[in-house]
């Protein structure tokens, strides 16, 4: 029987599709009967998803910046 602790340890493997068919069935069954793990599983996905929009945005290099880098690259090679 899958425990809640097992769910917390394998959630990333499941989200990344690195688990066997049997493991997936066991997880589905566990999530059906355990509301804590249902919430955990859903919120764990949300937590991972927020990172896509975090940190300072890197802006595209300007034409001047690109030109400067090209000059440096050519000078070195």
């Amino acid at each position, binding site marked *: 029987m899958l425990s809640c602790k097992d769910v917390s340890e394998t959630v*990333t493997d499941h989200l990344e599709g690195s688990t066997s068919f049997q493991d997936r069935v066991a997880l589905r069954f566990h999530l059906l009967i355990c509301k804590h793990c249902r919430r955990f599983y859903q919120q*764990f996905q949300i937590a991972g998803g927020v*990172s896509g929009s975090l940190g300072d945005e890197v802006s595209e290099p300007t034409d001047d910046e690109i030109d400067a880098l090209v000059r440096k690259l050519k000078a070195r090679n």
Partner: protein
Amino acid sequence: MYESEDALIKGLVNGEDAAFRAAIKQYQVSMIYLARNLVGDKIADEVVQKAWFSAMKAIPRFEKRSSLKTWLLRIVANEGKTRLRKENRMTSLEALTEADPAFATRFDDTGHWETGPAQWDADSPDELMTRDELKACMDQLIEALPEMQGATLNLRERQGYSLKEICNILEVSESNVRVLLHRARTRLFRCIENFEQTGDCCTS
């Protein structure tokens, strides 16, 4: 101007200005994101510039076993790791084999939740990030993540790379990539949960 990646690579090998420009325009942003995760904002630009030098030197020998972008990111990762090692900032990957205590205290002897996870006040990442204080807190957390965790999280969540591709870029095993990703997401989860319950940021 360059319709295919092959044409672009050929242009780079021939030292064409237009090819350099096209490659920088297309890949610079991704390269800087990765470098920032590994070495921090201050020296990321310098590391990326070094990576371009190395890449242009090596481009005639590029065997196209991966996409040009993946190959460039791998060079950035290498430059970044070299820099970290020089400054003794590289966290050993051996530490990954130790058990992660993240949730251990949350379960009873039979492996059931002692106190279940708290309900969050949002159903999606976007909804969660509309709250400025929490967003600021998460920004801090991301910046403070161990280098390889930050890099793995960025490659997976922001740039959408598969675990296999991430192994190739960071040159670590797939099981290590999974552990790195799991730990990074776990930190985010715990930090959000803490914020939801106390209103405080986990890193302050």
